[in-house]
């Protein structure tokens, strides 16, 4: 994927998110300390925040163009074909696992992303009848990932998906993410503040500090 993030200016407290870059890769990491603007950038890409100015293109398709005198384009989040797994997962507590997964499920003819295949890959087939409050942390995380995958996203946004997991579950989930990437061939934007996860999973990284991208490149070179 090619993600263009031009003239980005978004007011955050106590600094502004400022960005002018273009990045190409299958799994792109956004790396930086807590409060550096990583989640705000994901929200901006998803269309959940209104910037002072921004031009966002995904594989050439214009998603946002704000702050330009000639036009104002803000494609609604529902039309961006995204899969977003936020840090707090945001599973719908009043719906069962099956209903959570069905919420954004788009059936395509002979597609690889089917409810059966995704739930099998993520090992949640047996959880479909359960309520969200009955799930463990790891199960919730896999359900949130499955829900995002089932929308047939053009881009998967993952906001520190492993942050709340214990170390053993973390390495297992990282393997799972790699399997998902290989199996479904989906471009991912992966927010984290763990360098190890990036080296394992990502092919490009943007390093954030106080709302600005201070370095960009391959993980091996950039993180060293």
């Amino acid at each position, binding site marked *: 994927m090619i993600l263009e993030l031009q003239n980005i200016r978004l007011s955050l407290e106590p600094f502004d998110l400022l960005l002018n870059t273009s990045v190409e890769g299958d799994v792109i990491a956004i790396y930086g300390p807590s409060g550096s603007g990583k989640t705000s950038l994901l*929200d901006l890409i*998803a*269309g*959940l925040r209104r910037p002072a100015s921004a031009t966002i293109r995904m594989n050439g398709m214009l998603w946002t163009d704000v702050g330009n005198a000639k036009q104002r384009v803000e494609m*609604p*989040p*529902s*039309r*961006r*074909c*995204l*899969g*977003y797994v*936020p840090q*707090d997962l*945001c599973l*719908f*507590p*009043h*719906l*069962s696992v099956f*209903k959570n997964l069905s*919420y*954004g499920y*788009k059936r395509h003819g002979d597609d690889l992303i089917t409810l059966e295949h995704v739930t099998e890959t993520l090992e949640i087939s047996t959880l479909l*009848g*359960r*309520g*969200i*409050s009955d799930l463990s942390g790891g199960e919730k995380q896999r359900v949130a990932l499955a*829900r*995002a995958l089932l*929308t047939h996203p053009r881009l998967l946004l993952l906001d520190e998906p492993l942050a709340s997991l214990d170390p053993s579950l973390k390495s297992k989930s990282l393997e799972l993410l790699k399997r998902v990437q290989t199996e479904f061939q989906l471009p991912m934007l992966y927010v984290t503040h763990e360098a190890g996860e990036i080296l394992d999973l990502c092919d490009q990284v943007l390093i954030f500090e106080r709302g600005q991208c201070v370095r960009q490149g391959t993980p091996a070179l950039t993180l060293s």
Partner: protein
Amino acid sequence: MNFGDEMQIIGFTLWVAVLSTLLILPPGLALAWILARKNWRGKSLVETFITLPLVLPPVATGLILLKLFGRKGPIGSMVHDGWGMDIAFTWRAVVIAASVMSFPLLVRSARPAFEEVNPRLEQIASTLGAGRIRVFFTITVLLAKRGILAGTLLAFARAVGEFGATILVAGNIPRKTSTLSLAIYQCFQLGHDSTVWRLLLISLLIALGAVWCSEWLLSKPLSSR
């Protein structure tokens, strides 16, 4: 007052309460959601205006409604000239009085319920391809259903018991605008004790039924399978 009259009064009162509750639901929920989610200059004025029927003496609210909906009032005359229809001292006035008096109760119960819904859930639902209306009905309303339900039942109960505003704007015309509360008052004044007790018992049963329904619905768990 014979058995037929009593049945007519009970049926009319329930019909008015149901109709007024249904009428205030769409604007009440919309307003409660706007007050919970949006900020604008003059918001506190709107909040004050909505609360007015709760703090004003019901008779004063009734008088305002009579001035507005009477044949010489701005709305009443417009409706009379346009459609040849009267509002004051008809069943329409009973419905309007019940709606106005119960509207604040619905809004004041639904608003905190909407405020408690995590807006992040609505945002994530929109990234899953859901438009605003689908998000509102499948996420916001379902998560706020307890407050909405409590407000709806309160509004219904208020409409059943409405007296002060109704007697001014609709009067107490037998088989036309007479409701349970008005009939109890009239029978009490005339010394028809047995009828008073019967109507009182029916009022009590309706109130108990509404509260029981609300408790039963609220006790059901949020999560569905």
